[in-house]
């Protein structure tokens, strides 16, 4: 899909077979079940899926900020710039968080500390990652960041409750970008915002990314946002990537029945249709995933083969991945 980093033989961000589980109340939640992803500098990968598919867990695993109680990374590797983050000691990892990798959260209403001024919250991340001998003034940098995201620097000493939702999300972005990260994890950054504000925020993120050549992992459930922002797309279902390719491949030739279903379920903005085509049934219970393909109970094409064992990834010649053993039959039916 994308050319390899010439310095190492690995892509800039390379996730291999990541497995994450939660244990709660004696039950094991299989949140992420062997996810592999890669992303180059300056590119954007869209991670699409529904609630509970494991999108946020992947982002938090990269940063290693999963909750201490119950969550466990059970396997896999996360390489950034050739370094396996999962093997770094906590002290080293702390230097990476907020500096090399930073994250934008879904809900700007709760993502900021209500009893600290927004300026302090931005300055804090700058101060934490000052290199020895670096003469940057964190307060000045924080004011600069506020201006960059379109907030007057005079509002430095105001508290989050004095800002609107869109403005808060700008502050969150300022925190995330204050140290010029190489990788930005954006977890549904505009879901909580109104559409006109969403457009502003998406634009802001795109501008800043272009300026600093930041790679971005964009987590969303909104196909429209993916179409606008991403280069590559990974569709995730029940903790597994079911389809992975460039934006054009996935949008023009969706192959996995889940992706096809997802597109069918969205009301089309350009065509009139009497009825939508929902996907039957419900997402599976992550404590008790079905055998074989996790989507098989809802899949109109499923056969016994699908329910037997784990499904392999099928790759077309141009590098379009699909985790489905019935690709050919589906391609025939869908035309």
């Amino acid at each position, binding site marked *: 899909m994308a050319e390899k980093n010439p310095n190492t033989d690995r892509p800039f961000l390379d996730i291999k077979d990541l497995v994450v589980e939660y244990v709660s109340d004696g039950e094991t939640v299989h949140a992420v079940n062997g996810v592999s992803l890669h992303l180059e500098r300056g590119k954007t990968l869209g991670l699409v899926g529904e609630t509970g598919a494991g999108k946020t867990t992947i982002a938090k695993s990269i940063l290693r900020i999963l909750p201490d109680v119950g969550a466990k990374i059970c396997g896999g590797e996360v390489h950034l710039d050739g370094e396996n983050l999962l093997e770094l000691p906590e002290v080293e990892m702390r230097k990476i968080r907020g500096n090399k990798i930073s994250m934008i959260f879904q809900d700007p209403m709760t993502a900021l500390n209500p009893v600290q001024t927004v300026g302090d919250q931005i300055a804090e991340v700058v101060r934490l990652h000052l290199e020895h001998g670096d003469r940057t003034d964190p307060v000045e940098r924080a004011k600069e960041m506020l201006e960059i995201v379109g907030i007057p620097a005079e509002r430095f000493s105001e508290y989050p409750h004095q800002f609107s939702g869109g403005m808060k999300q700008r502050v969150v972005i300022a925190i995330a970008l204050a140290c010029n990260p190489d990788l930005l994890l954006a977890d549904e950054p505009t879901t909580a915002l109104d559409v006109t504000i969403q457009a502003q925020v998406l634009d802001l993120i795109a501008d800043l990314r272009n300026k600093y050549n930041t790679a971005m992992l964009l987590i969303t459930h909104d196909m429209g946002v993916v179409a606008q922002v991403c280069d590559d797309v990974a569709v995730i279902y029940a903790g597994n990537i079911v389809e992975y390719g460039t934006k054009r491949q996935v949008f023009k030739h969706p192959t996995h029945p889940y992706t096809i279903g997802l597109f069918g379920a969205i009301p089309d903005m350009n065509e009139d249709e009497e009825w939508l085509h929902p996907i*039957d*049934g*419900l997402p*599976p*219970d992550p404590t*008790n995933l*079905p055998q074989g393909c996790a989507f098989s*109970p809802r899949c109109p094409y499923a056969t016994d083969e699908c329910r037997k064992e784990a499904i392999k990834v099928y790759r077309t010649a141009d590098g379009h991945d699909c985790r489905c053993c019935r690709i050919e039959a589906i391609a025939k039916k869908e035309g």
Partner: protein
Amino acid sequence: MPETKTAPAPQQHKAKKKSEFMRVMRQLSKNKLAMIGIAVLIIEILLAALAPWIAPYEYDKMDIPNAFATPSAEHLFGTDDMGRDIFSRVLYGGRYSISTGILAVLISTVLGICVGSVAGYFGGQVDNIIMRLLDIIQAIPGMLLMIVIASVLGPGFINTVIALSVGSIPASARMLRAQMLKERENEYIEASQSINCSKFRIIFSHLLPNCMSPMIVSSTMGVAQTITTAAGLSFIGLGVQPPTPEWGAMLSAARQFMRQAPHLIIFPGLAIALTVLVLNFVGDGLRDALDPKLKN
């Protein structure tokens, strides 16, 4: 979970309407401390109820020559200044202490719910007036208020219960009201309005049941608190009077001998502490079991 494409229904849906209660009990049974608490509490209540049959001696049987005996096989907890068997007295004392606690909390919770619901039902000025009256009562530190009321009413079991419950009504009314205000924010209240439920129905069929969990927890804790307070009142001579073997009163009477015979103060105090402790275990367990955040 979904074995078919059409609406899969988990097993427990066939269960009867009791399932809410059963769920709480299941949660509770996972909590070791709470189960210990319930077990000890049941034993205590049985011991207190059956005291006349179990107690080795009459609680008021004096045996002056045998006064101040230290614990032995004959007198498990020793004897007091009159030679009365402390073990028997502690057993009998449980009857007063536990029933004072339960009765007072029952009365104050029921009255608190009434006051709180009336305030919630009428709202507006009525609510305002009730809350301001509660403000006045709550401006007096609780213990002081109960001391004053107990002293006005004079000593005795019933009077103690009244003093204790009057003193705790404002807190429970206020708690119910706060809970109702919080619960009223939920859309199901608007939904009930839209299907023409009367105000009465909304409060008693929807709001109250949803406010009960914290009330149950706080009542359990309240019984514990009240047992201590009741003992405190007897201790300063305002509650149940000696020679009635109430735990606080026993402590009060034993005070003057504590230098020579510390066992006189140890056992009644332990009895209070143990009862309060296990009630707190149960209350904590109930809080966790009823916590809606743990549902699902």
